[in-house]
């Protein structure tokens, strides 16, 4: 179930909180123990997992988020968007490249990262960043999505 989850140490170092450590124990040890001693569960395993762990912040990304994160994963980390953004005078709170990296990471981890406050600062929406992206990531869309308030 958790085969794809690789973000514990990253999130731990990123947020500086014990939350990641707790989730590691809960999903990596407690969950396994409960499965070993519990009754044979019925129903879809993914749904049962989400029902159990939604309170901890685990959730399946919605279709839009998943699509954006998938696009963001193509990022080469080349930095052309950052340079073009600075050149054309856009003023996003977070560097476009950092936004793309954050978006790709969020999908892998399933867990909502704590993002810095200035990410919601609007830029001039010129989309110059998108025009130079070698892998055509919808960078401005990704930034808007990161800045949007979510439940």
């Amino acid at each position, binding site marked *: 179930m958790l085969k794809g989850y690789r973000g514990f140490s990253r999130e731990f170092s990123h947020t500086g909180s014990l939350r990641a450590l707790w989730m590691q124990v809960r999903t990596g040890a407690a969950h396994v123990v409960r499965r070993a001693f519990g009754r044979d569960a019925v129903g879809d395993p993914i749904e049962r997992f989400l029902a159990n762990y939604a309170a901890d912040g685990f959730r399946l990304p919605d279709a839009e988020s998943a699509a954006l994160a998938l696009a963001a994963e193509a990022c080469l980390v080349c930095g*052309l968007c950052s340079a073009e953004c600075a050149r054309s005078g856009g003023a996003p709170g977070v560097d476009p490249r950092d936004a793309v990296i954050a978006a790709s990471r969020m999908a892998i981890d399933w867990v909502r990262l704590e993002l810095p406050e200035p990410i919601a600062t609007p830029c001039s929406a010129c*989309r110059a960043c998108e025009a130079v992206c070698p892998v055509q990531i919808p960078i401005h869309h990704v930034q808007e999505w990161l800045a949007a308030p979510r439940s």
Partner: protein
Amino acid sequence: MRAVVVGGGLAGSCAALELASRGADVTLVSAAPGATALSWGTLDVAAASPLRRGALPLRDAASGRPLAPLGRLHAVAAANAAHPYATLLRARDPEEEVKEAVAALDAWLAPSGLRVQGSLAQTRWLADVHGALRAADLAISGAGEGDLDSAGEIALVDVPGLPGFEVRSARRTLAAEMTAVGLASRPLSIVRLALPDSLRDVAAQPARFARCLDTDAVRDALQGAVAALGAEGRLLLFPPVLGLEPTAGTRAWIEATAGCRAAELVGAPSLSLAGFRLDRALAAAQGRARVTRIAGRVQRFESEAVRVRTVQLATRNAPGQRNRPEDSATLVCDALVLAMGRFVGGGIVERDGQIAEPLLGLPLHDLAGRRVDGLAARQLVRRDYEGEQPLFGAGVRTDMRLRPLGVDGLPRFANCFAAGDLLGSFDPARDRTGLGVALLSGRRAGIEASSC
């Protein structure tokens, strides 16, 4: 005469500029900035790497004398008969060919304030952001002025708050590497650029910081701090953030203010702007030469007997209009130059588990001359970090006029040419000939195409 060049990196740009200078009506189709925009400011014809295994020799084995770039170019061509250099230089005087190409590039870049620095008689020592030495044949302005050999005293400039640049570690490494090649007599120090508070936060975003350095307001605020860095006979080595616009002359302003030489370190701790500036200067040169630039991808072509007649392209949506179907356009071409690069640019793609050249379906060969199209990329990599990787040498083969060959070993079309990394049988990273091949083959493809 109408020519279409596919690919906007150094090879495509040189081909387009050369065609335009010979009176052709040139359209350059580019999907996005490519490897040239991501380059680090050095331009190696055939650079040696002194401290790495499997690198080109620094010295001639028989006489023990240092090999100049041109000497190594011959060594590269002699060692691999299918190398683009061997193909290009078979019937020409290599020295003339290289000199003309470098002079042409210098002339194209000069109006934007960039120059090609260095000589083909001697390799120069530059330092990268980690303090490692790089032997570079030529370098574009920025890194190009950082020749360690000619410096009296060297000072690494620490910019507080700039991510990824560890100045003390760079100094340690540089001191050790300079000792290894006999440059140790030069004093090596660290100086700190005193940033005003208003610029501290900006330095966390290197591109934005570079942009600030281009403006008069920030230069006024930094006047005193930059002047304090200077000393008689000193070479100031900055992280590669000295300006976004090549025309702004930020490096020259620092030299004038500090009263000593200033250059950038090679490489990218977080972001090197050297390639970005080079890309902008090449685009500006194309604007002056009246080359039409279209953002898009060539998808299909039509041929008539042995000539390509038209190409159809999907033009890239304007930013923000992603969901609109792409527009298509048809360009009539008397000559077609392919310079889409390799994997990043889309000159070679892996589709359904098979690598292929997507436009003309040309056969691909690896370094050893083996046909590799139709194989999966993973079949062409080996678990040997420093060893040769067949995948990285994959590309098309051409005749002496740079016309790509078909499966029968004959030129596929009479008016189609290939240049840059799309050419196979060399690994630009390994033999350190990357932009050199792009420059020489791009310009030569332009010359050949102009006679179509």
